């Protein structure tokens, strides 16, 4: 009786995926429409693969796979750009400025939405979210620029001799290839990725922001380089309790001379940032209440809600190694043409190295993209002139600006100094090679 009123159910064969629908039955094997699963004889066999009733389970419809944007149409030739960060999109823009027709394919490991990465260092105290940081969705940008977009697609192999790029959504041929794959956080083994946030892209920042939106928290930032110092200030301004850890005695100690780092530390202390220098993290663990515990070599034990690793970036060498591209701290490119060691492959942005040195700043990216577009479409090229960008720290309480390339063991000299402002310079062989401004120059 109850059978008449109960809803029809479905069962799936765990072996082959065949679905048995009670309403339809399986007339071919003698099960009339309306045969309840429990009424099926035990020796009944799956009509497709032959397993028995025991290997069926209630069928629960799986959620549809998250919709990634995948281009339709031929996967043929044209320019393929790998990476949809600032460098990838800048390349696409530069190419389109020169040529409205050339086929362009963009492959992105993430969604590929457009946002301005430096904003991540200031976004929390401004109350922004991952959504509000997006200036243009990848799909909209791809439409506007006439680009075939493969989002959430990983590049897994590259064969320059075949002009073949292999991805997790199939193999693409290319006429010219531009690598803008970026760099990834260099996580020391002691900082497990499942416990430590990294702020190197929108997804990483967005995950952390979602956690921090629940209210003021204790945050440990490991690494007091530029990113670590910027984030510390942003998080502190957003009302969180920040402890900043580094091996150096002072924040930014690897880059700046002592008088400057002392001022920075003072400024951080005024914001409530607890800087702990000369510490080496030896273990990270989760406590029963969900808190995270950091232990240091010198015996400190810190309990916080969130850990952020700001321990630098590296270029993933796998693709370059597999493709036989010259690699030295990054994909080696010719400093003028930005061509890699392989024919028809250029690279720019965080993933490259120039004369063995990576240069992971925003400023050169636009010029690099234009130089590559020129080389790919204009015939010539080789007009990129690398210059060391000015470093401006987004530390609002104490602006810091560094021009030139300071030499690690060079001597810094104070040029002028007062309570609010410090000007220093480094000279080599009678020439000023770098200048450092800390604080606001008063109207003098």
């Amino acid at each position, binding site marked *: 009786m109850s059978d008449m009123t109960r809803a029809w159910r479905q069962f799936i064969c765990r072996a082959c995926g065949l679905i048995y629908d009670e309403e339809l039955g399986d007339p071919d094997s003698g099960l009339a429409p309306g045969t309840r699963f429990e009424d099926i004889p035990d020796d009944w066999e799956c009509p497709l693969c032959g397993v028995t009733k025991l290997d069926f389970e209630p069928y629960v419809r799986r959620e549809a796979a998250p919709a990634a944007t995948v281009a339709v149409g031929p996967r043929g030739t044209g320019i393929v750009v790998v990476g949809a960060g600032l460098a990838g999109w800048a390349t696409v823009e530069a190419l389109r400025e020169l040529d409205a027709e050339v086929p362009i394919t963009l492959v992105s490991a993430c969604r590929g939405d457009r946002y301005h990465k430096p904003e991540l260092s200031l976004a929390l105290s401004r109350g922004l979210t991952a959504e509000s940081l997006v200036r243009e969705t990848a799909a909209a940008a791809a439409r506007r620029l006439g680009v075939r977009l493969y989002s959430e697609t990983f590049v897994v192999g590259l064969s320059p001799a075949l002009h073949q790029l292999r991805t*997790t*959504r199939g193999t693409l041929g290319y006429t010219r290839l531009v690598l803008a794959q970026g760099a990834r956080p260099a996580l020391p083994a002691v900082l497990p990725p499942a416990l430590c946030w990294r702020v190197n892209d929108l997804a990483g920042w967005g*995950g952390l922001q979602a956690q921090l939106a629940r209210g003021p928290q204790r945050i440990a930032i490991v690494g007091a380089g530029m990113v670590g110092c910027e984030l510390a200030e942003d998080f502190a301004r957003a009302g969180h309790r920040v402890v900043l850890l580094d091996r150096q005695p002072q924040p930014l100690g690897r880059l700046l001379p002592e008088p400057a780092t002392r001022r920075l530390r003072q400024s951080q202390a005024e914001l409530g940032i607890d800087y702990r220098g000369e510490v080496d993290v030896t273990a990270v663990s989760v406590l029963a209440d969900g808190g995270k515990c950091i232990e240091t070599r010198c015996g400190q034990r810190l309990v916080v809600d969130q850990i952020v690793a700001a321990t630098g970036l590296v270029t993933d060498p796998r693709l370059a190694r597999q493709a036989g591209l010259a690699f030295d701290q990054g994909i080696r490119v010719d400093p003028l043409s930005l061509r890699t060691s392989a024919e028809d492959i250029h690279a720019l942005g965080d993933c490259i190295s120039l004369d063995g040195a990576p240069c992971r700043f925003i400023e050169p990216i636009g010029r690099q993209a234009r130089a590559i577009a020129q080389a790919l479409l204009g015939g010539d090229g080789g007009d990129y002139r690398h210059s060391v960008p000015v470093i401006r720290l987004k530390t609002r309480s104490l602006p810091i600006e560094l021009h030139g390339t300071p030499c690690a063991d060079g001597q810094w000299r104070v040029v002028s100094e007062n309570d609010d402002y410090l000007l220093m310079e480094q000279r080599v062989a009678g020439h000023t090679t770098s200048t450092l401004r800390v604080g606001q120059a008063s109207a003098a």
Partner: protein
Amino acid sequence: MNSAVALSPSSVAGLADERLFAEVRRIAAGPLAQLANRIDHEGHYPLEIMAQLGEAGALGAHLQCRGGRYDIALAAMQEVSRSCGSTGFLVWCQDVCGLYMEQSDNPALLARLSDHAQGRTFGGTGLSNPMKALAGIENMLLRARKVPGGYRISGSLPWVSHIAPGQYCGAIAAVERDDGSRSHEIMFLLDIDACVELRACPAFSGMEGTSTWRIQLDDYFVGEDGLIADPARPFIARIRAAFILLQAGMATGLVQGSLDSMREVEPVLGHVNHFLHDRPEEIQAEFEELGGRIMQLARNPFDGSKDYLLDVLDARTQGAELALRATQSALMHQGARGYLRSAAPQRRMREAQFIAIVTPAIKHLRWEMARLMKEELPA
């Protein structure tokens, strides 16, 4: 006809290696080639060929006890698959079963390894479902219950190849606690004895000579002597790259066979065939590039790093894609003669489709590569 071989071991310096290759080539081009249609049409299970291959040393070259020569094992598999994809698959089954036995370090299984490696006994692999289950694609089908001295296994496993009464295969079962929850997995060698029921599987469109059955287990006992790994996961993590890498030899064999077929008709059909794409030179170039990479990977199948595994998954995927293209192109090159029921090109197309869908299928390989490459973030 004897075009460059993509999978050529780095140093076939030794006389023994040369003799092994000559013998494999003789078997593949002679008796196996003659049997290929019987295998394909009648489902003949060519154990007599497997025994010859075993005697020649082609089924154990990759084992550590024989020097761990994955390059030789792959090249031999390529040569066999060039003549018959079904038999190439049997070689892979036998090879990975030997891998399980040797890596188990179980003295009882090591004692059986020599016969296995020489093709005096035969064993396959039932890891299709477990491999997908461990990757999160589907559920584990066999269930184990701890009992004194071992485990009792129940459940049914479809599509297990290269098995028959008196043979054996590797298998994995999820261990259930009394309350039905699952604690871990065990891996064991399943001896096909009177307690194991083999049931027929529906016919496939190809690969019918691989003796593929559905296994039904009802409280089957596995003791110490049969255990390959307990727990199974660390073991699988260790052997997974080698397991997948070995499959590449089947793909390159089909590509090689397809190149043979394309070139065979060049004298008579070359004047029209040059209007086709995926010409032999194009396929050959990709074949050699892929082959070179596979031979590099064969040097260190237990590398264990994530990058290495990605390289293996990539090469295996590329092999499957290339086999699909090459076999299709060979049929286009041969035209009607390749479409004959007795012709190799149409058979190879079905064999290549199998390579593309056998676990891990192209879609599983890409799923796994995406999973490995996705950056892990805190929960």
